[in-house]
């Protein structure tokens, strides 16, 4: 019986057995192929060409990749910065999103609604992070400088965005502050899905405190949302560009705020070397897939 099942189905058979499923998926599949799959495949294809948007792409084989890895020291800086960034902000903001969502869930409904808005506030308007530009303004009137000078810790205002030692820590703080977004909302929604009766059953079975409750009941029940949050964190923490471009400018001092995506921005939007830009995007794509596989394996072990 099992052998028969394992035999590859013909198209007609699959259609006959699963027609309704395919019909449900049809509108999405059409749009997905046209607006996501084809553009991605074309971009990967372009990464093997030299293409300046005006002339027809010239096939160059692996030259873009070789240049990128072997002859582009700035790209290595970008990778180093991006990885540092992702290692710090990825897990930290993942934990932050979960812990906040979990704590909010304990509050009475009215307070909870207000707190959800408060935590989500940085993400609700696109450019809200520009406020950090005021805080870390380089003159004595910037909030950070004014405060430090008042406390007597510094004599002269610090040039926050022009000093390479400060750039990365500031970007990390801003990203953490900004990261209570999609995953946070998904966790809140996920917590609503946990069956209340399980908590009562847990008390009978000897769950003693909130930590045990979290570990034995809440976390296993939220496995899909945790997976979703992980994918979001990976893509977000490795795709930092807007805050770097807007806060420290481009190019940043000594490339201290240079990430893979600002490198992509440089070649894609400024130098119009699309083949090279596509190679950067493709490389980042595979880095993310690789990290995703590792993280998913880790999460499976935990949950």
């Amino acid at each position, binding site marked *: 019986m099992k052998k028969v099942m394992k035999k590859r189905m013909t198209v007609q058979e699959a259609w006959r057995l699963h027609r309704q499923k395919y019909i449900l998926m049809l509108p999405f599949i059409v749009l997905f192929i046209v607006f996501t799959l084809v553009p991605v495949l074309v971009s990967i294809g372009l990464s093997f060409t030299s293409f300046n948007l005006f002339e027809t792409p010239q096939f160059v084989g692996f030259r873009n990749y070789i240049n990128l890895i072997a002859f582009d020291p700035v790209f290595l800086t970008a990778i180093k910065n991006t990885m540092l960034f992702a290692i710090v902000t990825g897990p930290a903001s993942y934990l932050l999103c979960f812990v906040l969502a979990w704590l909010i869930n304990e509050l009475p*409904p009215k307070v909870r609604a207000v707190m959800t808005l408060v935590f989500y506030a940085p993400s609700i308007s696109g450019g809200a992070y520009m406020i950090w530009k005021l805080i870390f303004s380089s003159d*004595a009137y910037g909030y950070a400088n004014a405060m430090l000078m008042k406390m007597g810790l510094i004599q002269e205002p610090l040039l926050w965005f022009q000093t390479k030692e400060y750039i990365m820590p500031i970007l990390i703080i801003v990203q953490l502050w900004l990261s209570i977004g999609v995953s946070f909302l998904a966790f*809140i929604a996920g917590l609503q899905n946990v069956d209340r009766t399980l908590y009562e059953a847990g008390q009978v079975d000897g769950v003693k405190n909130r930590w045990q409750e979290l570990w034995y009941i809440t976390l296993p029940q939220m496995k899909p949302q945790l997976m979703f949050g992980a994918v979001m964190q990976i893509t977000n923490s490795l795709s930092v560009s807007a805050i770097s471009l807007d806060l420290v400018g481009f190019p940043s001092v000594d490339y201290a705020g240079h990430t893979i995506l600002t490198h992509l921005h440089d070649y894609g939007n400024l130098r119009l070397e699309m083949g090279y830009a596509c190679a950067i995007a493709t490389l980042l794509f595979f880095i993310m897939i690789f990290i995703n596989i590792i993280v998913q394996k880790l999460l499976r072990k935990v949950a």
Partner: protein
Amino acid sequence: MEKLLAAPRKWWRRFKFRRKNRSLAMDIVLVVLLGGVGFISIWPLLYIINAAFKPISEIFLFPPRLFVQNPTMNNFFDLSVIIADLNVIFSRYVFNTVVITLLGTGGTVLIGSMAAFPLAKYKFPGSKFMSNAIVYSLMFNGTVTAIPNYIIMTRLHLVNSYWAVILPVIGGTFGLYLMQNFIVQVPDELIEAAKIDGMSEYKIFFKIIMPLSKPAWITLIILSFQSFWGNTGGTFLYSERLKPVSYMLSQVVSGGIARTGAASAVTLVMMLVPIIVFVISQSNVLETMATSGLKG
């Protein structure tokens, strides 16, 4: 001594939301933690609200102050004067935004959920491939796909129509991936039972899957609304008559230093609508909790 210790506990117990297995000490730590993070998070919101009501003299005040001293409505009057002077009537922008946001959000939720259901609950030829393709395509950066996308749009004669803004988002995989991760949790027994009752997959989708994954699609509505609301149409909408409100307002902001007052009013207006949608939708997410017990 024992009485003293017991008293506050009893006082706390009166709150209905308190469950067993909770210690007071930990509660206090948590409230402090929430308050601390909340204080940092609320900053931009306070800043934007205050800036909108600041007179010009206070906007340019050095050193800058967070809270407004002499609140005024002038910024909003300035904005209304600019709006009245536009070449295209304001209601046209509003109409464009409403169409794009409604069709876009509705389409993302409906089409995404329809595809998410079979992928989450069944194994069939192609399902594994699709699931992987969906996760992986989230990881490909949009900067470089913009050009192939534009060429496809041109070939399909979609450029300069609402569809150019809406369809790529629906064809993106974010919404589907979110829904898929929630629909997985709908108990198989319910679907089996529905099948025994003779329900078709379509009926199961509308009668069982959607009602049970309400927190998920409400969350998706919030996120999707927010992104469509902020969408300025970019290169895909070039005729002024099709541009959304967000584009018009961003033009006001880019009008230079003379418009600083109006610009800060714009920032508040742009933020207000998503906040209202957020609050209404989010209270629905939290409400479902009271009635849910549907698992298992």
